[in-house]
């Protein structure tokens, strides 16, 4: 499984935030919002069945976060640190390879 592309971002942002102080009204670290783990908002969690996936990339295209990235074989991988559980991917999946199940914490 490919590693989330946002992992490296988190390390970079954390390092830069400790090194420099943010001046007023300027957020100078690109993509620093990766620190906010919005996955805690989730009520329903997408579960992915790789056997049914036809790699149409619709879930990847529609994800508003983006909490879906692609692995080496271009299958979608869900980043549960950021997925807010909206369910667009499950609703739009043409083969129903994604199902929404209730989150258990």
């Amino acid at each position, binding site marked *: 499984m490919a590693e989330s592309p946002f992992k490296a971002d988190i390390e970079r942002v954390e390092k830069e935030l400790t090194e420099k102080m943010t001046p007023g009204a300027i957020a100078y670290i690109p993509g620093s919002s990766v620190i906010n783990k919005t996955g805690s908002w989730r009520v329903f969690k997408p579960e992915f069945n790789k056997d049914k996936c036809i790699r149409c*990339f619709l879930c990847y295209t529609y994800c*508003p976060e983006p909490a879906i990235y692609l692995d080496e074989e271009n299958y979608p991988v869900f980043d549960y640190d950021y997925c807010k559980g909206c369910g667009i991917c499950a609703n739009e999946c043409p083969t129903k390879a994604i199902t929404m199940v209730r989150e258990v914490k």
Partner: protein
Amino acid sequence: MAVRKPPITTREYWAPGHAACAGCGCAIIMRLATKAFSEAMEEKYGDPDAFAIAHATGCMEVVSAVFPYTAWKAPWIHVAFENAAAVASGVEAAWKKLGYKGKILAFGGDGGTADIGLQALSGMLERRHNVVYIMYDNEAYMNTGIQRSSSTPYGAWTTTSPPGKYSIGEDKPKKWVALIAAAHQIPYVATASIADPYDLYRKVKKAAKIDGPAFLQIHGPCVPGWRIPPEKTVEVAKLAIETGVWPLFEIENGDIRNIKFQRFPKDGKFKKPIEEYLKLQGRFKHLFKRPEAIQELKEQIKAMWKVLGKEVELP
């Protein structure tokens, strides 16, 4: 087996962790538009990062730039509600003077474009600045709590157009800023929708490659404002196209007689009734007690298509 390639670039300029609601339609626009823009810049200038963004106040500005964090991975400037187009013009002029290669992208919501920023937009288009202006249209002022804008459709509930005994909700027809932009005879005007993401992608890419101003009006459903469940965002946008509520078209060089339509039925007859689009949304719930209001909405949609030069039939 060969590995299938995704039809859109895997570079991200819209980082996760922003504060948009789950299922936000406009967040999809931000993500796809910046991706398409970077692909166009790579093909045109050989540098995918050769762009900067000017962003009017609005939903997507509020959720993406919660100080001290930002969701943007491109140079991004937040400006007041009314002057995204003016600031984009200024940045473009400065880039020209400094000899930078690239193009400016401006974002504005429907309030920041159709109401407050209209004169700045008109000035930018008239001066022919090399800017792509994208209006993400969620049909009300969503970030301040769902007040009506001039882009709110007829009959919709908002907090400032509440339906009741003497009111049917919003009582004026929707303003089509794309047609106002087309009247400036600029190189490219289009409407798009998240319902057809690859069409959206193609149009943003085309707009980015053109020299001169371009304007896009993109439909982006809003989960709390339209009273829809978060997973139905794209479904609602699809129904808007299938029922004829949202036209997809392109106008090049202000040639309003030769509008190119996408996803338009050949005989002008839409298969799905507009009620299917309305019944999914809580903001139109009260219309089902008032059939005459739905009839009026249909008449307005027919009139809108007539302006575009099409006679349509709505079931």
